[in-house]
């Protein structure tokens, strides 16, 4: 069964992908802008053309690039689509729609379905390290994930590892207070590795379950800041076996092609195990998910669909594609 049929079943409620109505509503609302952008345009396109031809494909290409799916990804996608349409002798736009959704899905699940779950450490604290460029929402993301873990009954610690940005330590402290979890801090300007050392010692001794570490925002082309990240990794790894168990790269969904470069560069320096895509509710795009998967092969683990505490969701490709295309049906 192709993904398009699966999608139909979800819409017709023959298949359950959402845990409850609340979750479905969140996806419906969070993806409202993205969906309107892509689905509406695709529907309009299909109304405009009665036959699939070169102009049709050109407009389709434009539409996908406008969704920030990424120039390379779109070019490859178009090649495959045109070949498949020819082979399967499809000339009606309505029929082609199914192929489009299918092919987009294939980009993501190509070869293997990436593991989108967080890996927990069974023997001691699970350490999650959050990295990314400036202003993507690392601190807020940490607060939201901390709350999720706390709600699961875990003993949670936050570590204020961003000792560079003015106000960063205060920001995380206020969150820790609000959620009711512990936090380890140091002074602004201190060596981030030293606060992590103190925090992880404490986490081991006092048997914390989950430790979430904030880091300063850094642009991926700043050599010395990227090297600092290396040092942080070494310190963490020495104190707790296998740590960090997850290194999550936080990316702002409003970002364009630079998101791909961010993923590539951070992956080179440190072992990125997953991506948190924030601010998806604000953008009509969000195609970056597909581009990152195709070009860098890192799974998205969380997506931010709103500013509320519970609006950060575990990523699920079926729900995501549903969010994008449910109005196509």
């Amino acid at each position, binding site marked *: 069964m192709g993904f398009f049929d699966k999608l139909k079943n979800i819409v017709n409620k023959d298949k359950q992908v959402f845990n409850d109505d609340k979750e479905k509503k969140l996806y419906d609302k969070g993806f409202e*802008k993205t969906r309107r952008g892509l689905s509406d345009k695709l529907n309009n396109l299909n109304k405009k053309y009665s036959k699939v031809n070169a102009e049709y494909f050109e407009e389709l290409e*434009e539409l996908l*690039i*406008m*969704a*920030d799916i990424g*120039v390379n990804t779109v070019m490859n996608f178009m090649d495959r689509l045109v070949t498949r349409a020819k082979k399967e002798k499809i000339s009606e736009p309505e029929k082609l729609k199914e192929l489009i959704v299918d092919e987009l899905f294939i980009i993501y699940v190509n070869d293997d379905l990436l593991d989108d779950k967080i890996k927990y450490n069974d023997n001691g604290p699970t350490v999650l390290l959050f990295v990314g*460029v*400036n*202003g*993507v*929402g690392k601190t807020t993301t940490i607060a939201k994930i901390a709350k999720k873990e706390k709600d699961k009954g875990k003993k949670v610690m936050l570590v204020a590892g961003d000792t*560079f*940005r*003015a*106000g*960063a*330590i*205060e*920001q995380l*402290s*206020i*969150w820790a207070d*609000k959620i009711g979890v512990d936090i380890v801090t140091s002074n*602004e300007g201190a060596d981030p590795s030293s606060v992590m050392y103190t925090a992880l010692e404490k986490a081991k001794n006092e048997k914390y379950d989950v430790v979430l570490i904030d880091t300063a925002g850094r*642009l*991926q*082309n700043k*050599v*010395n800041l990227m090297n600092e990240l290396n040092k942080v990794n070494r310190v963490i790894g020495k104190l707790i076996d296998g740590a960090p168990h997850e290194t999550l790269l936080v990316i*702002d969904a*409003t*970002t*364009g*092609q*630079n*998101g791909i*470069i961010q993923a590539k*560069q951070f992956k080179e320096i440190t072992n990125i195990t997953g991506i948190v895509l924030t*601010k998806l*509710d*604000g*953008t*009509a*795009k969000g195609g*970056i998910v597909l581009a990152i998967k195709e070009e860098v092969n890192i799974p998205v683990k969380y997506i931010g669909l709103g500013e509320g505490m519970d609006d950060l969701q575990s990523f699920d490709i079926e729900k995501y594609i549903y969010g994008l295309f449910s109005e196509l049906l």
Partner: protein
Amino acid sequence: MFESLSDRLDAAMHKIKGYGIITEDNISEVLRDVRLALLEADVNYQVVKEFTASVKEKALGEEVRKSLKPSEMFLKILKDELLNLLGTDKVKIETNKKPTILMLVGLQGSGKTTTIGKLGNLLRKKYNKKPLFVACDIYRPAAIDQLKTIGKSLNIPVFEEGKRNPNEIVRDALEYASSNSLDYILIDTAGRLHIDDNLMDELVNLNNEFKPDEILLVLDSMIGQDAINVINGFNNKLPLTGTILTKMDGDTKGGVALTARHLTNVPIKFIGTSEKLDGLEEFDPGRMVSRILGMGDMMGLIEKAESIMNEEEAEATYKKMKKGNFDLEDFLNQFKQIKKLGSIEGLLKMIPGAKKMGLNNINIDPKDMARVEAIILSMTKEERKNPGIIKASRKERIAKGSGRTVTDVNRLLKQFEESKKMMKMFSNGNLNLPF
């Protein structure tokens, strides 16, 4: 910032060089490359389409056909058309009214608070103004603390009243400013989505009551195709007077610069070029085009140097260079001044022709510079004035003192001698620079 864009354009240009004449056929491949380069730089699709169409039309025109060097003509067309997109004039910020009210708005994480700090710093330094920061981000935890920390480090007053209604805060801030004779009111607002009606109304209320002289939209230069919706979203509700592009020191291709002006007519006024509080430059379209096309930015370099260097000191150093008695003490001073200019990589990239000389991909670890400094600092005054006396035992002491090896010390001394020779030739006018 625009390196990869300029690399791709450069490659495209290279293809044309081989052709004696530009025809529809041989130009189509080049135009495709230009198109892809711009799309990869996140330039709006619509803008790319118009741009390539008009470049094509002009390239096939009579003038180019007749010209002897089509590739040069093509470059000129690209340059002119890019300038068309960016707007040909520099648009300055309002500086004459007292008080001048500036409001910064934008999405979350675009860099408003840091930019407020940079802007205050620039207004004070360049225009001799007395700014006041007003903290109106009443939502993000610790946003007020962040502004207060920045204000403290710059010694610029920050007005805050905690989480009150922004209109009330600004009202009180204006009173405070007039009784303390401050002439610039910089309002920091909370980050918000352009589609969030409630929060947008808050900005509209501020605009209605205070009619700011400038409302500046702060945009992350890494923004993708959504840029146009964001700019329009803010511009439809507020009379934007300009945009500020932040994080231009990253490896973003900054296509939004090309999108913003062309589609909305809102001019770019400043660009953020480092994490430090002096990392804000007034936007100059001509210089930006030069950077995009990899032609360097000599004006920017000179301006930067002028803002840092002390004229008398420079004059004295120049005289010493000319006489050839430039010593390690001077070398150290020069070194410190260069450090103030920011990253060496950034400086190198501004040199015209840097790419051809292979200077654009140099990575310099700030630690290397610190090492050189440490070695010189481990010398006595006498040794710095007269490096000739540094022999084996002195070298060993210096190496120990700076935590380096004797080889490192030797290398530094050798480099110093070389540069001294270069300077002498340079000042005698005997040196042919490679550009």
